[in-house]
C-alpha cells in the first residue's frame, strides 16, 4: 500500500519525501484548499521546486484543490488547476463537481482524485464520479467501517485511499457547516474549520474557558490540559449530562488494522496533518514506512511510538470499528 503524506510547508515536503513517502499532498496558499491556515501552503514557485525535488526522488505530488468554488470567483480554482497541471502534479484532489467537470474536460490526461470533502460514501456515488469525471481514486470518508470499505472496494471502478492517522472528523466531511454557524467561516467555503482567528481563551475563577466566536466550547478545571476548541470536540450540556457530545479530543489511529485494510483492497494510506510541523511529519512518515515494511508480528513497537506522537496521546479507530457509531 502507498503512503500518502501531508506537507503544509516546503520544509515539511522535503522531510516527507526524505522519510519515504510514496506521495506528498499539499495545496496553494489560498482559499482553494481545505487547510487554508495562516503561514501554511505553497506559492507557485515553491510548488515548482517541491515537485522537482519529489520527481528526483521518485515521489509523487498530489495537489489538493478541495474547497467548493465560490460563485462568481471560479477563476481562482480554474487557475489553481491550470497551474498545478502545468507544474507537473501527479494528481489533483478535488471535491466540487463543477471543478471536476472543468478539469476532466480541459485536462483529460490529468489524474483526478476525489477528495474526502466530496463525501462519496458508497459505490453508486463513487462510480458516478468515475463515469462522469474519470476519477482514478477516491479518498473515502471517515464514516465507514472496514467491512464497509471491503464491500465498496468490490463494487467500484477506481482505487481507494483511506485516512489512517491524524485528526479525525466526526461529521461527514464536506457536509458540515458547524464552523460557519459559529464563526462565519467553513471548511467548504473558506478551507478552515474552527479558525484560530475566532478562538479566545479566558480565565473564569479557577477554570480556563475556550471559546469559538460567541460560544463556549470547553471549560478546563485547574490542572487539566486545555485543548484547541475544535467545535465538534468540545464539551457540552445535553439533557442532564455534560461531556464530549460528539467526540473526545482524540485522534485517529488505525495502523493496527493494516492487514485488514490491505485485504479490503485499499490502495493507499493517508496521514492527516498539513498543519503539523516538519519534525512531526518526518517522524510519523518514517515510523509508518517502517511499520509498513515490517511483518505484522514485528510492528508493535513501531505502532507504540506512533501512538506517543498523537494529539493528546489518546487515539481511536473511529468509524472503522463498528461500535464507535
Amino acid at each position, binding site marked *: 500500500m502507498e503512503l500518502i503524506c501531508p506537507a503544509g510547508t516546503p520544509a515539511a515536503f522535503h522531510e516527507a519525501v526524505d522519510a519515504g513517502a510514496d506521495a506528498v499532498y499539499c495545496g496553494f496558499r489560498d482559499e482553494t484548499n481545505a487547510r487554508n491556515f495562516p503561514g501554511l501552503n505553497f506559492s507557485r514557485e515553491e510548488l515548482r521546486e517541491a515537485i522537482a525535488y519529489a520527481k528526483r526522488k521518485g515521489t509523487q505530488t498530489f495537489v489538493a484543490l478541495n474547497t467548493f468554488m465560490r460563485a462568481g470567483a471560479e477563476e481562482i480554482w480554474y487557475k489553481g488547476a491550470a497551474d498545478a497541471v502545468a507544474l507537473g502534479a501527479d494528481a489533483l484532489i478535488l471535491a466540487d463537481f463543477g471543478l471536476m467537470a472543468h478539469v476532466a474536460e480541459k485536462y483529460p490526461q490529468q489524474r483526478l482524485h476525489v477528495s474526502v470533502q466530496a463525501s462519496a460514501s458508497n459505490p453508486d456515488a463513487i462510480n458516478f464520479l468515475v463515469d462522469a469525471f474519470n476519477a482514478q481514486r477516491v479518498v473515502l470518508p471517515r464514516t465507514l467501517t472496514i467491512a464497509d470499505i471491503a464491500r465498496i472496494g468490490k463494487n467500484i471502478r477506481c482505487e481507494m485511499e483511506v485516512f489512517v492517522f491524524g485528526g479525525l472528523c466526526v461529521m461527514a466531511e464536506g457536509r458540515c457547516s458547524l464552523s460557519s454557524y459559529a464563526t462565519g467561516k467553513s471548511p467548504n467555503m473558506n478551507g478552515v474549520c474552527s479558525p484560530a482567528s475566532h478562538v479566545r481563551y479566558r480565565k473564569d475563577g479557577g477554570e480556563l474557558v475556550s471559546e469559538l466566536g460567541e460560544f463556549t466550547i470547553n471549560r478546563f478545571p485547574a490542572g487539566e490540559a486545555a485543548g484547541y476548541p475544535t467545535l465538534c470536540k468540545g464539551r457540552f*450540556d*445535553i439533557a442532564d449530562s455534560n461531556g464530549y457530545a460528539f467526540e473526545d479530543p482524540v485522534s485517529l489511529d488505525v495502523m493496527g488494522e493494516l492487514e485488514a485494510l490491505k485485504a479490503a483492497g485499499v490502495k493507499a494510506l493517508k496521514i492527516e496533518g498539513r498543519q503539523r510541523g516538519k519534525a512531526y511529519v518526518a517522524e510519523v512518515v518514517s515510523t509508518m514506512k517502517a511499520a509498513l515494511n515490517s511483518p505484522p508480528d514485528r510492528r508493535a513497537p513501531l505502532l507504540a511510538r506512533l501512538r506517543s506522537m498523537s494529539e493528546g496521546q489518546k487515539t481511536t479507530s473511529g468509524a472503522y470499528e463498528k461500535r464507535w*457509531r
Partner: protein
Amino acid sequence: MTDMKETSLTLGPVYYLWDAEKWRDFHFRIADEAPVDRVVIGETVCSKRQHFIEPHLAEVVERLESAGKTVILSTLALVTLNRESKQIREMAEVSEHLMEANDLSALAILKDKPHTIGPLVNVYNAPTARLLAGRGATRICLPPELPFSSVKEITAELPDMDFEVFTFGRMPLAISARCAHARSKGKIKDNCQFVCGEDPDGLPVRTLDRQSFLALNGVQTVSHACQSLLSELDHLVEAGVRSFRLSPQDCDMVAVAKLHREVLDGTVDADAGVAKLRQLYAAAPLANGFHHAKEGAVWVARTRSLQAAWPA
C-alpha cells in the same frame, strides 16, 4: 424578474422522528389547509427509522395529491449501507413520483430522470448547478450556508432553472455515521431504541455556560436558531429565486406557511411577518446570518427595522 406572486412554497421533509400518527395527521392538515405547492416526504436522516412512516405513506400521498400538492419523495442524506443504496434504486425504478437527491448516490441513480436537488447537496456555484441541470435536475434547493452574493451569481447564470432557498427551519448543519443523540442517552447507533423519537424538535445542546447552541436529531446536528429569510424574500425574488422551502419544526406549520404566502403576496409586511413568526415558533430565536455572509447563528436586521428600532 420574478413577480412575488409567481413564487411557490415547498414544505421540506420532516427531519425528526415523529410518532407515525402525528406524522400522518401533520401531512393531512398540510394537505387540507397549508398554501404550499409541493411537499417533500420520506425519511431523510436515518434509514433505521424508515419503517415508522411506511404504513401511512400511501394515504398521505393520496391526501396531498387530492389537495393539488405535488409530492416529492425524499432520499437519505448519508448513504453507507448496501440496503440504503438498494432502497433508493428500487424507489427510482418503481416510483411515479419526482424524487429528491440528498446524496451523491441518488444523483447517480436519478441521472436522466427528472428530479430535484435537496439542500444537503453541495451546490456552491453555477458550474455545479449547470452540471446537475444537465443530468436531469429540475429544481435545486441551495444549501443553507450559501450567502446571498452566491445565490445571486448562480441564479443569474442559470435563468431557466427553478432555484429554491431554505427559508424557514432549524438549519441542517452536519451529519455523522455516529449517533450523538443515542450516545447522549447511553446508547450507540446499533441499539439506539429510537431514543431520538423522544425529541420531536431536536435535543438541545447547550454550551457549558448554558448558551443554547445546537440540537441533536439522531445522526444529524441542526442549529438551535431557526433560519428565517422572511425579511429577505423581496431580494431573493428579485434575484430570480422562485421557490421557498419551509422545513418542518414542531409548531403550527400551517400558520407558518400562510404567513410566508402572505408576505410573498404583499398582504403582510415583512417586519410584521417576522414579529408574527417569532410567536409561531417561540422555541428558538430566528437567524439569517448565512444569507448575509456572517455567522449562521446571528440575526441581521434590515435597515428599515433598525430605523424603526430608534426612539422617535
